[in-house]
């Protein structure tokens, strides 16, 4: 019987109000789990609890009943027999009369009511009894908020789960509900109330049923909540939003047509309010009610609704039209919410009762007035703003009416379209049947803008109507539909009118002319359904007009842009609706003409515009882009052969290649399945080069051509798959080996300088080919097979010594990717390659033979020893970068060489021996530039390059490689700085600065304490040379990053004094404004450090900052004011102490 005593204990603990809520909840859980696990039956529980449930002590009884109720909530999914359910519901039902213990009774009823049918439900009779007891005993509005909520929930579940049982209560029920909900104010309860009324109305749909007599009362209760207005958005109500309430109320409003006589007048009254949210709500409710109340009931209010709705549209529509090219198809700019709701209501009304509402619209005096008004103004700009707004409103109304249904479209066209045609001076006989007879005639006078605007609205509405209806109009079957008949007849003359809008006006052309003209033509051209509605001649005429604008009118920017946009839209439309007939015309007229723009040598039209036109048209569809690409490539090849002769061709090729790599290649990469295009492009370029190129002098122009060509080649290759890359590599290798003078096969058999000699004999053409080949190598995937790697390595090494950076980058890419693609058959492993590179005799810094070789190399290459060394360092840096990124240990050898060069002793070894061959008069100079490039090698190592070795070019990147390098190199550099001589110190700082700058800030932050001294020393050591200004700026940015970070601030707190001194020196930095500005910003950040640290420096900073107040640059002065304020305010006394 331990269980029983335990149970009693739990019950005690729950009932006893002195226990904490946590304990009570725990004991509840315990009892519930006993029941769930069948260790206890519900009967036993009730028997044990008898005393608590029937005691006369109100508090204990209330707790006891609540416990039983809560336990039932926990047992929601446990199957129970009908008998206990019956007796329990009987008990709780009785307790509803016990107002002192009400909460438990409500919880219990609700828990039983909500039971699923699978686990035993309350029977219908019991439910009815509960409802009766509820109506008899509960005074809902006199209860507290939580009990009210429970009451409403109980009512809701009664109505929803036992509709038949409670419906039999009839009038009683409705009356009871009215009484219960009247005057409710709590948002949570209101949500329930609204829903209860909605469900109730569904329960009594009969128009003569019991609800009919109560409809007025019920609506009176509901109506006073409209429009929902939240005055005190309290925190606990945050989960009930205004919109939720408004939606719930709307559903209640529209729940039964019986509310119609009361609801519609109320809504119309509120619509006339000046509160925008009331207007929007009224319109939304009206829309909903329209659909639910039905035609007959709404018909009574037709006129009243129309006039209110018209007012709403007239006063809310925008009064300004935008004439931007973007708004051409720009799906009506962000429209006024009121207008949007009003128009959607209008559409619903028209769909419901077409005849009545169109009668209203047709007979409307205001609309007639607008039609009279537009004929009195010729141009859009003359119309006063207010009338403009009304004009737009009429436009929107007519367009909405036409869009509503085919029937309404007919009616609108019948009444208004012909009127508009009259105003425009177009007539049917002008064109009917024989569109060809008057093709040449242009309407000479300016068209009426107002009428043009309205016809555009109408046309676009019926275009949308056609587009939205599933069935494409079959020929002749529908000709009886008036609007189609009218449209067919008028389309040629309308086209003319639109054309003339932007052609004939000569002296005072307005934006409106062009916009209306282009927009009208665009709409005519984009009617779906083949050539049924718009004849082929008209369509082609429109295309020709646009194309000629693009070809000729490029000086008129707006018109040109509009026409181009329109062409793009037509292209998109053809793609979307698969209009095969129109596609042919489009290809023939538009695409070919535009593509020919690329090749025409006539220079009247600016080249950039041509390229823009080409690309815009291309983006409208895949098939067009392919044509455009063909055209582009054709022009590139044609001009490539002439590059050396005419600077013009070089210019064209440069432009086109740039456009190719910036726009076309990304587009092709996005559109799947077009890789072949890129493959052909790459192969064709190689063919061109093999066949026809004659090169001479490296003019700067041609150098530019090579650069852009390499870029395009890299991007094209990088976007291909491995198989296609293999093809390209094969092709380029065969050209490299067959049509250049490089003896690829024998290369590695010879001594370095001999090869150098051979390579040096190569022509400029050979160099082009080699550079382009390097570009291919840079971009390939690790899995792509590269033939004959060994000779390739030699070749690149020698050319890099001549100063060819692309060769160095290619070498870097090769060592980066070699052997990592999973292919084992490659003829050279990474280790072998590294041996070749490091042991090769051409490596001048490396072994004992170097002086000898160096001497020979300088003779062979005919360059000074210094530049030879610099080239070697740059080359090594790129190779090192490749190794560093894949995390190879050999990168250490590279960095050791750089560090050696950074120390005078290191270079001295070389230069000392060198004296025999070169004069020692410029020895110091030589040191400097070599040391500088050795320092900059670290920038190459750490920096992200766009040219090679990045993700786009499939580099192998080991995670955190920068962090690793940073943490191995910084201690080394620090110790070197300590030992260094004055001569080499700046270069060591420069090298470490590059590493610090390119390491992710978060890594630097974790090591701040150690880095800060180095960073500050660097800042002061480098601040004298103007060449170091970018480095200074980079270091300052790192410093400011540290100062902005919480942990960084803690770490630098000790060295605040040195930081401030260093920053104060930089305030006067003469070479770069950004440095001064950032230094001052850093000072502001320092002022946020702990007070005790910075207070002593305060006067020093304030004195220094005064000088910055006089800075020649405004930005610096403004920062100085901020800084002064920040530092002055850390003391209690102000600026003038």
């Amino acid at each position: 019987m331990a269980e029983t005593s335990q149970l009693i204990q739990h019950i005690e603990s729950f009932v006893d109000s002195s226990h904490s809520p946590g304990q009570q909840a725990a004991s509840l859980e315990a009892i519930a789990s006993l029941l769930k696990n069948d260790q206890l039956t519900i009967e036993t529980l009730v028997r044990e609890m008898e005393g608590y449930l029937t005691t006369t002590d109100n508090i204990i009884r209330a707790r006891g009943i609540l416990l039983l109720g809560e336990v039932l909530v926990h047992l929601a999914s446990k199957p129970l027999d009908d008998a206990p359910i019956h007796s329990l519901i009987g008990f709780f039902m009785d307790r509803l009369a016990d107002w002192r213990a009400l909460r438990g009774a409500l919880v219990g009823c609700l828990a039983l009511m909500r039971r699923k049918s699978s686990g035993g439900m309350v029977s219908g009779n019991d439910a009815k009894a509960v409802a009766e007891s509820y109506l008899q005993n509960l005074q809902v509005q006199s209860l507290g908020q939580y009990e009210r909520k429970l009451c409403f929930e109980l009512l809701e579940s009664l109505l929803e789960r036992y509709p038949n049982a409670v419906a039999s209560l009839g009038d009683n029920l409705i009356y009871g509900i009215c009484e219960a909900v009247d005057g409710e104010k709590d948002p949570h309860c209101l949500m329930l109330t609204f829903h209860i009324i909605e469900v109730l109305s569904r329960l009594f749909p009969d128009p003569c049923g019991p609800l009919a007599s109560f409809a007025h009362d019920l609506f009176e209760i509901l109506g006073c909540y409209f429009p929902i207005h939240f005055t005190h958005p309290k925190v606990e109500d945050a989960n009930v939003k205004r919109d939720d309430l408004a939606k719930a109320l709307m559903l209640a409003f529209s729940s039964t047509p019986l509310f119609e006589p009361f609801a519609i007048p109320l809504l119309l009254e509120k619509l006339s309010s000046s509160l925008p949210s009331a207007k929007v709500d009224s319109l939304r409710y009206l829309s909903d009610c329209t659909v639910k109340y039905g035609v007959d009931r709404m018909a009574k209010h037709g006129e009243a609704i129309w006039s209110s709705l018209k007012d709403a549209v007239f006063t809310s529509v925008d009064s300004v039209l935008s004439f931007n090219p973007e708004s051409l198809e720009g799906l009506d700019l962000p429209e006024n919410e009121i207008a949007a709701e009003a128009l959607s209501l209008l559409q619903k009304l028209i769909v419901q009762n077409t005849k009545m509402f169109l009668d209203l619209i047709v007979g409307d005096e205001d609309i007639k007035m607008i039609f009279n008004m537009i004929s009195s103004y010729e141009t859009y700009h003359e119309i006063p703003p207010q009338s403009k707004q009304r004009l737009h409103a009429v436009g929107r109304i007519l367009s909405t009416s036409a869009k509503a249904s085919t029937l309404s479209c007919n009616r609108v066209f019948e009444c208004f379209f012909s009127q508009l045609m009259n105003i425009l001076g177009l007539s049917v006989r002008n064109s009917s049947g024989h569109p060809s007879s008057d093709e040449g005639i242009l309407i000479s006078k300016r068209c009426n803008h107002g009428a043009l605007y309205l016809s555009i609205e109408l046309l676009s509405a019926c275009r949308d109507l056609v587009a939205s209806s599933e069935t494409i109009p079959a020929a002749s079957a529908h000709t009886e539909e008036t609007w189609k008949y009218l449209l067919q007849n008028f389309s040629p003359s309308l086209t003319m009118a639109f054309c003339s809008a932007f052609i004939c006006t000569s002296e005072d052309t307005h934006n409106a002319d062009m916009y209306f003209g282009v927009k009208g033509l665009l709409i005519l051209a984009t009617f779906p359904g083949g050539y049924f509605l718009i004849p082929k001649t008209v369509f082609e005429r429109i295309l020709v007009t646009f194309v000629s604008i693009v070809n000729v009118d490029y000086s008129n920017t707006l018109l040109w842009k509009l026409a181009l946009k329109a062409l793009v839209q037509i292209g998109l439309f053809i793609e979307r609706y698969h209009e095969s007939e129109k596609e042919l015309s489009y290809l023939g007229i538009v695409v070919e003409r535009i593509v020919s723009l690329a090749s025409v040598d006539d220079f009247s039209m600016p080249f950039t515009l041509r390229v823009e036109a080409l690309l815009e048209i291309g983006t409208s569809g895949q098939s067009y882009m392919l044509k455009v690409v063909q055209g582009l490539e054709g022009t590139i090849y044609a001009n490539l052969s002439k590059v050396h002769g005419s600077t013009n061709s070089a210019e064209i090729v440069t432009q086109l290649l740039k456009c190719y790599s910036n726009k076309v290649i990304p587009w092709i990469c996005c559109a799947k399945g077009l890789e072949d295009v890129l493959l052909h492009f790459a192969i064709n370029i190689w063919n061109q080069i093999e066949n026809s190129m004659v090169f001479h002098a490296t003019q700067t122009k041609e150098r530019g051509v090579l650069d852009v060509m390499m870029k395009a080649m890299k991007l094209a290759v990088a976007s291909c798959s491995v198989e296609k890359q293999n093809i390209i590599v094969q092709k380029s290798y065969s050209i490299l080996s067959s049509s250049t003078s490089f003896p690829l096969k024998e290369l590695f058999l010879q001594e370095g300088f001999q090869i150098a000699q051979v390579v040096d004999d190569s022509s400029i053409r050979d160099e082009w080919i080699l550079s382009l080949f390097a570009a291919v190598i840079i971009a390939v995937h690790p899995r792509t097979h590269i033939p004959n790697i060994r000779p390739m390595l030699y070749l690149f090494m020698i050319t890099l010594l001549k100063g060819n950076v692309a060769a160095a980058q290619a070498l870097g890419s090769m060592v980066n990717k070699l052997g990592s693609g999973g292919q084992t058959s490659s003829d050279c492993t990474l280790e072998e390659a590294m041996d070749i590179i490091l042991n090769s005799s051409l490596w001048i810094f490396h072994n004992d033979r170097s002086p000898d070789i160096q001497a020979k190399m300088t003779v062979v290459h005919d360059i000074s020893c210094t530049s030879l060394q610099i080239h070697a360092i740059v080359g090594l840096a790129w190779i090192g970068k490749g190794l560093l990124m894949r995390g190879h240990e050999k990168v250490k050898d590279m960095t050791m060489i750089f560090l050696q060069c950074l120390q005078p002793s290191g270079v001295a070894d070389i230069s000392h021996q060198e004296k025999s061959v070169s004069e020692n008069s410029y020895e110091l100079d030589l040191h400097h530039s070599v040391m500088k490039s050795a320092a900059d090698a670290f920038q190459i190592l750490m920096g992200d390059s766009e040219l090679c070795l990045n993700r786009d070019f499939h580099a192998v990147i080991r995670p955190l490689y920068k962090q690793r390098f940073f943490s191995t190199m910084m201690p080394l550099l620090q110790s070197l700085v300590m030992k260094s001589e004055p001569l080499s110190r700046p270069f060591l700082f420069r090298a470490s600065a590059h590493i610090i700058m390119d390491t992710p800030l978060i890594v630097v932050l974790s090591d701040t304490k150690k880095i800060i001294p180095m960073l500050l020393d660097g800042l002061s050591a480098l601040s004298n040379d103007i060449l170091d200004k970018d480095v200074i700026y980079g270091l300052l940015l790192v410093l400011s990053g540290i100062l902005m970070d919480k942990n960084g601030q803690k770490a630098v707190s000790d060295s605040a004094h040195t930081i401030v001194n260093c920053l104060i020196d930089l305030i006067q930095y003469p070479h770069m404004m950004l440095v001064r500005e950032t230094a001052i910003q850093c000072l502001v950040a320092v002022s946020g450090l702990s007070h005790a640290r910075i207070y002593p420096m305060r006067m020093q900073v304030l004195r220094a900052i005064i000088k910055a107040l006089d800075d020649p640059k405004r930005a610096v002065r403004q920062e100085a004011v901020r800084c002064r304020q920040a530092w002055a305010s850390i003391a209690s006394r102000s600026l003038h102490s």
Partner: protein
Amino acid sequence: MTLGLINANPVVHAKKERVARSEDPHGDDAVDPLEIYDYVRDIRDPEHPYSLEQLSVLSEESITVDEKLGRILITFTPTIQHCSMATVIGLCLRVKLMACFPPHFKVDIKVAPGSHADEESVNKQLNDKERVAAALENPNLRQLVDECLYSNEL
């Protein structure tokens, strides 16, 4: 408020749109009236939670500057003729400009001619070095000025 406000209901004007200056690295960045105006437009009025700009006490046109000679002249218009706050406003302007410009600039602060009943004495007071220094020694006045300058009530 125990003491009545001097101007209980001032006319409030809209703030002018702040135009960002075009970024021109090689442009001439000489001190111009707009720069000075940008420093002083947000000073709060001693009486109301509005800026001097909103109360139309200051405008860009009322500031002249000669960078070569290092002279700045600000003419401000008190909201009403007998405004006793005119000197406080002037003091605020002076303190602000002292903070924003190096000491070699000479700043003259005047009320617009005809805008104040006691024009001459106000002008004299505002441009007297000794009296400005003395005023700033007064802790109450100093606090009022600081409130106006660094207030974020606006």
